[in-house]
């Protein structure tokens, strides 16, 4: 049997306009008729010569860092944007979920939004009417059917949105990271629903940062890097290869000199591997004048801004530099941190309510591996950013 999806040498380029907005103004266009120079633009290849095939009933995970081209690939497959070159042969009905609740309108009621959203996703009106009760049942919002959506809590809106999507019945389903939201119980429900979908012989293309979800759902994985396929094949081996290729380090430096003691340079790097992952922070403090005995603190927050905690490397010895600068290396144990993006803020001061310098969000790092070996259950954000190590003792 022929593959249900054939992607042949697909590339996509964007022109980056350096000093312009992505859209043109009429003046620019008129001006460019007279002046034929495109000096300020640069071609960026979001995807380069991608080829692969998907057989019917396969569920394929697509992984890669931010900017690797995952979303662009899904957009091309969903016909939202055309490829620059190459060809894709599709042998079935595609439904793409790059977002849940596309087209939801706050002024319309829950009932009306189900019909509007379902229709945007490609369902027929009769089909929506038939499944309407099931959709509402799945979302658990039956009491608010005729309330305008703007009065729904964000969780309820999301549940309603996902419920509509869950009842799509295409042959090929394209899903982008939509599971990264919502409360834990609902996420379990969604993953369960998606497992049903893949078991019923439908084809799934699934993009996610949550490697556990990928592991649970997908039989094979494609690893994208800089718009090209780095590796593809059986899930476990590709994921472990992906994990090894990750070494996050980031560097930050102060943009101007200050009169008080300040951070001049900070660099971070992940060391070791789960479950005993460590974050190494090298920082350089510059003190233009006197400096009282001070200490430093590092705040760690999740990518969405929720505080995880504050690390204060040993208080003794205090840091004290006079008219000089000095470099320090500190280490933070990231015991039990779950996969996800994190941001670091750095603080230095002589007393907890007196600040010399406070640099927020200076560097980020990403953890991709679960702290629990062999864990297949995902790490929903609602369960927090840390899994305390635990065991059954009797």
């Amino acid at each position: 049997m022929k593959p249900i999806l054939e992607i042949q040498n697909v590339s996509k380029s964007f022109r980056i306009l350096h000093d312009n907005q992505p859209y043109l103004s009429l003046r620019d266009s008129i001006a460019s008729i007279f002046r034929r120079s495109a000096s300020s633009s640069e071609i960026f290849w979001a995807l380069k010569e991608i080829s692969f095939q998907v057989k019917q009933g396969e569920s394929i995970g697509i992984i890669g860092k931010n900017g690797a081209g995952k979303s662009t690939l899904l957009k091309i497959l969903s016909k939202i944007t055309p490829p620059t070159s190459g060809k894709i042969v599709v042998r079935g009905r595609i439904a793409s979920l790059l977002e849940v609740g596309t087209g939801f309108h706050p002024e319309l009621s829950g009932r009306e939004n189900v019909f509007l959203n379902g229709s945007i996703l490609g369902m027929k009106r009769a089909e929506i009417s038939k499944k309407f009760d099931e959709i509402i049942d799945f979302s658990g919002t039956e009491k608010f059917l005729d309330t305008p959506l703007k009065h729904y809590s964000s969780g309820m809106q999301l549940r309603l949105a996902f419920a509509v999507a869950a009842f799509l019945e295409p042959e090929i389903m394209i899903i982008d990271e939509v599971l990264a939201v919502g409360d834990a119980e609902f996420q379990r429900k969604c993953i369960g629903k998606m497992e049903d979908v893949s078991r019923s012989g439908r084809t799934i293309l699934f993009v996610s940062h949550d490697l556990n979800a990928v592991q649970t759902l997908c039989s094979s994985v494609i690893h994208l890097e800089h718009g090209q396929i780095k590796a593809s094949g059986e899930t476990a081996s590709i994921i472990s290869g992906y994990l090894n290729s990750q070494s996050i380090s980031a560097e930050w430096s102060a943009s101007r000199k200050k009169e008080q003691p300040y951070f001049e340079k900070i660099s971070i790097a992940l060391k070791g591997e789960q479950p005993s992952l460590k974050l190494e922070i090298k920082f350089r403090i510059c003190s233009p004048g006197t400096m009282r005995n001070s200490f430093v603190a590092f705040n760690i927050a999740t990518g969405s801004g929720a505080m995880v905690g504050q690390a204060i490397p040993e208080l003794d010895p205090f840091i004290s530099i006079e008219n000089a600068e000095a470099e320090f290396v500190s280490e933070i144990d990231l015991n039990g941190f779950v996969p996800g993006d994190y941001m670091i803020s750095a603080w230095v001061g002589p007393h907890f309510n007196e600040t010399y310098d406070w640099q927020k969000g200076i560097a980020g790092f990403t953890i991709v591996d679960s702290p629990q070996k062999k864990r297949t259950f995902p790490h929903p954000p609602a369960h927090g950013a840390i899994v305390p190590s635990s065991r059954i003792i009797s």
Partner: protein
Amino acid sequence: MNRTEYEILPEKKFSLGLDELSHFRELIFFFTWRDIKIRYKQTVIGFAWAILQPLLMMFVITFTFGKMMEGKTHLPYPLSIFIGLLLWNVFSSGVTNAGNSMLTNAHIIRKIYFPRLIIPLSSVFGSLFDFLVGLPLLIVMLAWYHFPFHPMNALIGIPSAILLTFLSTFAMGTLLAALTVKYRDFRYIIPFLVQILFFITPVIMPTRIVENNALRFLLSCNPMTSAIELFRCSFNGIWPDPQLLFASISSSLILLVLAFYYFRKTETYFADLA
């Protein structure tokens, strides 16, 4: 299993895409319905605005130009204006809404595929709905003026007037929608353009009494001129000048072809630009 095989290629072959549009006809309905619903949500008198707008405008124009125009129209002056305004409002609100529709729906365009033409198309249908709401008032006004009505003229006049209004609104709106995605300048050009067009549309005065040749020429290039004159002829019994009809209808067809071509040519890149 019903296998639908298709290819995704860099450049789409040019096609009218009408079969695809008809496949998505339910979506056209839902977008139209959403636009209508939202337009009058949170207003106290709701759909009555669709009647009130042309009615108030009619009073204003009658008050301003009534004396000057006395005896120059075959129909009572307020009725003559109201007939013109009903169609003009479809055009002005349809062009404005359709022109901006790509930007107001940008979040949907970026996330899902459907024929992009659906968006300006349903904006235009939404404006036609206002016309339907205004019709009962037209009947009331006709009754008030003892039914000036010419059934034979109406048989051709009314359907062709509505069709021409729809086509010119759709053409103009679609062209502006595609242009607005690429050049944001059009967000400011559209209201201005609609205002200018109002003055070269025979709402305030019938085309016959325009003596200035340049103005007459502009009037006959305006796609809405034929629509309004044809609509009026159902009530005053006077067929519009065939030369003017020909010029006006041709210009609306040229506009339609141009709009369709430009929209189809640029629509694949809307998601990248919107």
